[in-house]
């Protein structure tokens, strides 16, 4: 080493060889990536699959893309950490197997607002409609901007078959039938949600507006493992859980670091 960094040592000679120098730099920066990231990307089994986790429906996918367009992820995270206070506040922590259809992942890096990973089923549809139209009508003192245009803009569904097709190519298991019927399927789900909003006393005629897609997506969030866990495990309800939805935290051992 000492010889290497002598004023006239090997490094001095290396400084005269840009090509060799560049190759060495390239190797140095590739090692970490190869060891740390590549295995996760290449090995398909690196993430434990969960049987009940299903791809998003076409309407939910449309809603997810609206979520991305509006940049919701800039203020809302979507990943619950295995701490007792997060389990109490949000519900079960996020499992790797739940994320396999997230293209892109939307875990976020900042909670200006609360985490949304387990928001599905926490509030009625109408709550979300009101909240988007005017956040302070449901959450006094909220600092969230209003999104009234979501209740006005027509919902674009015609690109859904292409979106599903691209996702299928990337590995999401959409069937040919699902792709062919994507638009019809989305319309059906949109009508259901709009009808429920109306039944809850909300505005009528939202079935062809963007808001129903976003509601569909938000209501789906974090609910896939609920169906799985409620069936086999007669787990006791979460102590003082804020939402009726939260399944019992099953991993107290992981809640270290508190």
């Amino acid at each position, binding site marked *: 080493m000492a010889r290497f960094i002598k004023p006239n040592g090997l490094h001095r000679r290396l400084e005269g060889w840009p090509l060799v120098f560049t190759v060495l730099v390239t190797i140095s920066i590739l090692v970490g990536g190869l060891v740390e990231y590549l295995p996760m990307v290449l090995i398909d089994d690196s993430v434990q699959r969960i049987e009940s986790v299903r791809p998003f429906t076409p309407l939910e996918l449309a809603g997810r893309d609206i979520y991305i367009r509006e*940049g919701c992820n*800039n203020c809302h995270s979507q990943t619950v950490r295995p701490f007792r206070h997060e389990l109490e506040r949000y519900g079960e922590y996020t499992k790797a197997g739940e994320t396999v259809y997230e293209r892109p992942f939307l875990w976020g890096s900042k909670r200006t607002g609360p985490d949304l990973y387990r928001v599905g089923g926490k509030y009625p549809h109408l709550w979300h409609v009101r909240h988007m139209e005017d956040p302070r009508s449901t959450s006094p003192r909220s600092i969230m901007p209003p999104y009234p*245009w979501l209740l006005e803009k027509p919902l674009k569904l015609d690109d859904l078959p292409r979106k599903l097709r691209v996702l299928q190519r990337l590995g999401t298991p959409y069937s040919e039938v699902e792709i062919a019927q994507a638009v019809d399927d989305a319309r059906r789900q949109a009508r259901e949600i709009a009808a429920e909003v109306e039944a809850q006393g909300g505005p009528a005629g939202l079935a062809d507006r963007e808001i129903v897609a976003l509601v569909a997506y938000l209501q789906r969030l974090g609910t896939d493992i609920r169906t799985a866990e409620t069936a086999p495990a007669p787990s006791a309800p979460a102590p003082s859980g804020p939402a009726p939805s939260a399944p019992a935290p099953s991993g107290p051992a992981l809640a270290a670091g508190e």
Partner: protein
Amino acid sequence: MEQTRTTPASTTAAPGSSNVQLFSYDEQIVRLFVLATVIWGFVGMLVGVLIALQLPFWPANLGEYLTFGRLRPLHTNAVIFAFAGNAIFAAIYYSTQRLCKARMYSDLMSRIHFWGWQAIIVAAAITLPLGLTTSKEYAELEWPIDVAIAVVWIVFAVNFFATLQRRRERHMYVALWFYIATIITVAVLHVGNSLALPVSFMKSYPIYAGVQDALVQWWYGHNAVAFFLTTPFLGLMYYFLPKAAERPVFSYRLSIVHFWSLVFIYIWAGPHHLNYTAVPEWAVTLGMLFSVMLWMPSWGGMINGLFTLRGAWHKLRDSVVLKMFVIGITFYGMSTFEGPMLSVKSVNALSHFTDWTIGHVHSGALGWNGFMTFGMIYWLLPRLWRTKLWSERLANAHFWTGTLGILLYVLAMYASGITQGLMWRAFDEAGRLMYPDFMETVVQIVPMYWVRLIGGLLYLSGVVMLMVNVYMTIRQAPKSLPDPTFAAPAPAAAAQPAAA
């Protein structure tokens, strides 16, 4: 390896004496990048001030295209790629030519790089408010713009490496090592993270999903900080600080050790952005470990910078350039201590998702990147435009306003982040959440958002002072600024004795 010694290609007959060649530097390209830096710096920070206002005052969300969610990526992209980006290009084009004693390989490529990059920035400024985004942090731009970035970057790389080939200086100075690392790594990161399948002209889905996407994104995201905001600025420091201080760099050995350890270790640190998530435990632990190790090479750079001023500290009194460099390097040292600390799991459990992170990145961006850039510009202005700086006093005012602005900004964010982090995890005596309503923890920190806004405004007004100084200095510059001509011995092998 032998053949690489005989690389320099320019064998054009030298006028005059047998071994001496005449050449000039392309200074116009540096002037262009300096001007772009100042203009985009103002724009990016103005958007920053707007979104800082939107947090405590929601009516500042001005309709569909100007909500926080759409403007925040515009702010980060503008400051990182437009402000800091143009600054490092100015630094690289100015110093590489001098360190190589050679004009840039191709003036045309330099222009393609400059105008291509500005076009990319304009495209970002249009598409992001329109909601055309991939959502991946610092990589929000959709696939056609990603392709354009890759093309422009390759042009830049070819131009740079071809200039290295034609250099008249046998050894590459340490600044050039950092530029090499920057150019190579940014290319690898950008391509690796942007791989996606298009759905339409402005929509795509990434080839990675979930946990994999998260890991790749933070491999990219963290190393964008490393190789776009750190290594090129260290190169900048290594060139401009000794010039401004008229002192040689403190330690050649330290520069070797900290360069290689920095470029090797940085890549590993990415997963610390994913502590306690669904990412495998071994990956985040490795990420934390390397983050802590990173502290030392980072401080190697800080020490080499600050110790370069040994015996020259009195020069700070009269030199606003040196004052800015010293503040910049000091903030580099502080944020590269803070970074490893925040990556430690038990600290991260508190700090993650809070404003502490925002404070941390701004101590890096405003303190380190901002002040290194300002120092460089104040040093370059009189040289590039061959006149005196219009006002030293205004530059000093910029220094103090900016410094005060950062301090207010960072302290407000620390207070806000720690407050909210503690409130989220507080339990009462009965074992229930003390603040089950998230809103309580938001209302508590709103006053800090106002303080941050004031800090941001102060920093922005410093940039306005810089703009005035740039404008007035250029006004008094001579009409014609021909590239200066220099003479140096012909490159290479023949002229260079083995002793070097």
